[in-house]
């Protein structure tokens, strides 16, 4: 079981090849390839590689499946006795990606960090 921890949109995701995840909007069309260069950790069986905090040279590539919107959330603000209320609808823009490949970066870094 091989997986990597990547960082995008301020969040960290644990991904393996073939996974489909929703990440914060990426400016790419469907069918294009997204590359995540911020890889924090890579685990392959009992072999663990981590960066400081990023692994240099490591990257995860993914195919953009679609640009979509999250479920609608209603922001309802209300102040009692003040006659104030606001309703604002919001749908977060997401990009659905399918993970194609995970590369752990240069061998040198991997050998140094691995325990």
């Amino acid at each position, binding site marked *: 079981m091989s997986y990597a*921890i990547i*960082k995008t949109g301020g969040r*960290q995701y*644990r991904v393996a090849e073939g996974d489909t995840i929703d990440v914060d909007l990426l400016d790419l069309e469907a069918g294009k390839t997204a590359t995540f260069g911020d890889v*924090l*950790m890579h*685990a392959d069986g*009992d072999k*663990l590689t*981590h*960066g*400081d*905090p*990023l692994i240099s040279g490591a990257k995860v590539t993914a195919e953009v499946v679609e640009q979509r919107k999250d479920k609608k*959330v*209603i*922001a*309802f*603000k*209300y102040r009692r006795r003040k006659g104030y*209320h606001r*309703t604002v609808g919001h749908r977060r823009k997401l990009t659905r990606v399918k993970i194609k490949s995970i590369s752990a970066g240069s061998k040198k870094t991997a050998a140094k960090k691995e*325990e």
Partner: protein
Amino acid sequence: MPRATNAPASRARRKRVIKSAKGFRGRRSKLFRYAKDATMKGKYWAYRDRKTRKRNFRYLWIQRLNAAARANGMTYSRFAEGLKAAGIGLDRKILADLAVTDEATFKSIVDQARSALEGKSKSKAKKAA
């Protein structure tokens, strides 16, 4: 002049509130007067609690990490210090998930945090001497 009312719009408005209060308990789902209050509070709390949820989950992850770190002979506080010293930037969500689903990997992270912590205290002692 005939009296002008706006009955269809009022009825539609009330109906909308009653519909959104479906499944609420007792008269809160049946009577407009109570349904209105219930839906407003529901939306208000939902908005607030989307923010508190983020805190609550962080508390939960930290509790799990503390338990997992102690199982590996380290307290959470020392573990967090060691992570920083080792330059591991994984967040609490990921670490807690690893602790539950991939114990071997978590253990090696704890070991790295421990060795980084020892290195840190050693260099500090050197400076003092």
